């Protein structure tokens, strides 16, 4: 092994910074999944009858389904009876101010760098933090309420805005959509709801932070964003979890609805615990994210930086139904050690003059497997649809894999669909060239990787971009071969 490799390998194993466990009292239900458990979750959340009905329908459907096997993943058997489906930090009833939040919990969110305190108001980020199954605190609710913006936990929305939830929940991702969507629909515990009224430009970035804390717990959250005519919102999502030897399941659903001229920008930095360097532990991240550009001239933009999780199965997609609607997908997916990722997007062109862009940058290191899987579908009536796709793969070392599965289905002759793909490798020559100019190996990798991914990183909101750059460097340290 060369000297560079040695240094790199030592550095690669830098600790997962978010691996701490919060010592906090939680209220959990016993392991296992049944109609009874679904009913308990619903009862815990004091849900109306229609919500319980929805859950039970989803659960019965899920029971008839089998886990999908088509992804390029080595999926272990998951024992769904061995998971706790509801766990909540124990607290005295409702919270009125931050003073009432458990200090341990506040400490956790401080460690995570979440601007939960009011002093961070200046940063202009409204945060909904979800720990295990329960939404802990939504900041800035009042400021937003003045504009008619609703930003609250999903549970609250079920109670306070049942009409909106009934109308839109499952309208983009029905519970029949896929195995994990059905599971989520049956047992989801909380999540965020966001509603931007007509003509309103949301004055701050809205942000949700997800954290799995309790052991043996699955996290199943739902996010629903509805942007009415001519509105705009930028939404951020971050995720972390403690370091544990057993795998934990995360199966979320995100639904976005954009009406005429509405714009939604959804950014994710996914940093779930990836497992250790031997592939022990880590989160299984099976997520269904989909948006619909329902109105004319609407726009949905997904930006994701995926560095965590042992296994990722995720395809943030867009249905371009409105005429002249626009959809974008910008992704950086990094895998190291024994991580596996099968991620990409689907762009379904239905409306006329619709336009989609896909920029995917995969980075694989160690023994990891990193796949891009995407579908561009142009339906019969989608006159003048345009798509541009670019899928690049960067390899570090020779024990990892990069794969690209672009599917293109075009049923309209006026469509223009472009696809470009490249595969490259960080070589020892490149590293040495940097070394010889006084740049150490760690910095060199960070320069090269950030250069490679900058098209995507540039799409992130400022504060997220900085975090993401650091995350890329940490994830990849020590992985050149």
């Amino acid at each position, binding site marked *: 092994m060369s000297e560079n490799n040695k240094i790199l390998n030592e550095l690669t194993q830098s600790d997962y910074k978010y691996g701490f466990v919060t010592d906090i009292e939680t209220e959990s239900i016993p392991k296992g999944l049944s109609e009874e458990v679904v009913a308990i979750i619903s009862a815990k959340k004091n849900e109306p009858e229609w919500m319980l009905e929805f859950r039970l329908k989803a659960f019965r459907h899920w029971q008839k389904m089998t886990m999908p096997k088509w992804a390029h993943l080595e999926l272990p058997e998951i024992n769904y009876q061995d998971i706790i489906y509801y766990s909540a930090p124990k607290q005295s009833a409702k919270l009125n101010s931050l003073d009432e939040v458990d200090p341990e919990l506040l400490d956790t969110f401080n460690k995570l760098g979440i601007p939960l305190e009011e002093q961070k108001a200046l940063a202009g980020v409204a945060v909904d933090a979800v720990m295990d199954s329960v939404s802990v605190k939504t900041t800035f609710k009042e400021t937003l309420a003045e504009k008619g913006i609703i930003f609250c936990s999903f549970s609250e929305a079920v109670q306070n805005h049942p009409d909106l939830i009934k109308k839109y929940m499952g309208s983009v991702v029905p519970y029949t959509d896929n195995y994990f969507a059905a599971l989520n629909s049956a047992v989801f515990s909380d999540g965020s709801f966001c509603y931007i009224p007509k003509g309103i430009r949301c004055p701050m970035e809205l942000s949700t932070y997800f954290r799995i804390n309790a052991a043996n717990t699955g996290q199943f959250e739902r996010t629903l964003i509805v942007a009415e005519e001519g509105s705009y919102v930028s939404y951020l999502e971050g995720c972390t979890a403690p370091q544990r030897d057993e795998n934990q399941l995360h199966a979320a659903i995100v639904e976005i609805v954009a009406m005429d001229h509405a714009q939604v920008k959804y950014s994710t930095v996914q940093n779930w615990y990836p497992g250790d360097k031997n592939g022990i532990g880590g989160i299984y991240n099976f997520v269904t994210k989909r948006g619909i550009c329902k109105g004319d001239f609407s726009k949905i933009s997904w930006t994701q930086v995926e560095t965590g999780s042992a296994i990722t199965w995720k395809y943030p997609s867009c249905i371009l139904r409105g005429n002249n609607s626009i959809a974008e997908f910008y992704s950086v997916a990094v895998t190291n050690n024994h991580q596996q990722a099968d991620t990409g997007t689907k762009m379904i062109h239905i409306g006329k003059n619709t336009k989609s862009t896909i920029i995917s940058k995969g980075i694989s290191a160690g023994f990891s497997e990193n796949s891009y899987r995407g579908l561009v579908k142009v339906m019969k009536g989608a006159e003048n649809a345009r798509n541009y796709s670019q899928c690049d793969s960067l390899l570090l070392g020779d024990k990892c894999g990069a794969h690209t599965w672009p599917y293109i289905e075009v049923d309209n002759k006026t469509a223009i669909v472009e696809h470009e793909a490249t595969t490259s490798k960080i070589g020892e020559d490149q590293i040495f*060239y940097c070394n*010889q*100019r006084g*740049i150490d190996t760690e910095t060199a990798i960070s320069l090269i990787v950030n*250069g490679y991914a900058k098209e995507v990183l540039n799409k992130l909101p400022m504060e997220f971009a900085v975090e993401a750059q650091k995350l890329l460097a940490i994830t990849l340290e020590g992985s050149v071969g």
Partner: protein
Amino acid sequence: MLSIKNLKVSIEDKEILKGINLEIKPGEIHAIMGPNGSGKSTLAAALSGRDYASVTGGSITFLGNDLLEMSPEDRARAGLFLGFQYPVEIPGVSMVNFMRSAVNEKRKYQKLEPLSSSDFLKLMREKKEVVEIDSNLTNRSVNEGFSGGEKKKNEIFQMAMLEPKLAILDETDSGLDIDALRVVANGVNKLHSPENATIVITHYQRLLDYIVPDFVHVLYQGRIVKSGDKTLAYELEEKGYDWIKEEVIAG
């Protein structure tokens, strides 16, 4: 400045350099010539710290420090510069970012504050003029899509930016047309001063018409078999390397 004593270097267990001795003082230009496979590039690799060139014996002292104990990046920061025979392309990394990292790493090593953006850009402009490099080259990614000549000019530009104490130019003349050769040589001459030194590694005498060496060494089969002044280079140009080989065999 640089003192090489009985240096032995192997690549994949094959001994390439079999005892090199070389003394270089500030202000001097040394040319190292020799036929293909004589070990010229291996010497450059060993000096810059490439891991495939494993040093099996001897010592190298650079500005009073044991060079062999230093990492490649510390050698660079201490003032050792290698002009690559084949400069490497780094797509996506802009020349500006690359050079700013390099310059600031060096300043950090010298316990200086990093340059501000405006000072850095000013420095870039100045140095671009010195080496007559095309302005748009520095707006691109490191060496990406550069022609052979542009890559070599870029090496000289980087050398100007980093102001090394010792520059080693490995076959800088290979693949250059006469105009590019002149630009590169002018750059090297402009950067030369009584405080720094240059090692020019070349196969042909041609470059030495532009960069006039104080000493010429002939490397053959892993040893310096002959040293002299610049007239030795002319002699080699005229008679080729065969007479040296014969001398070695006879000796």
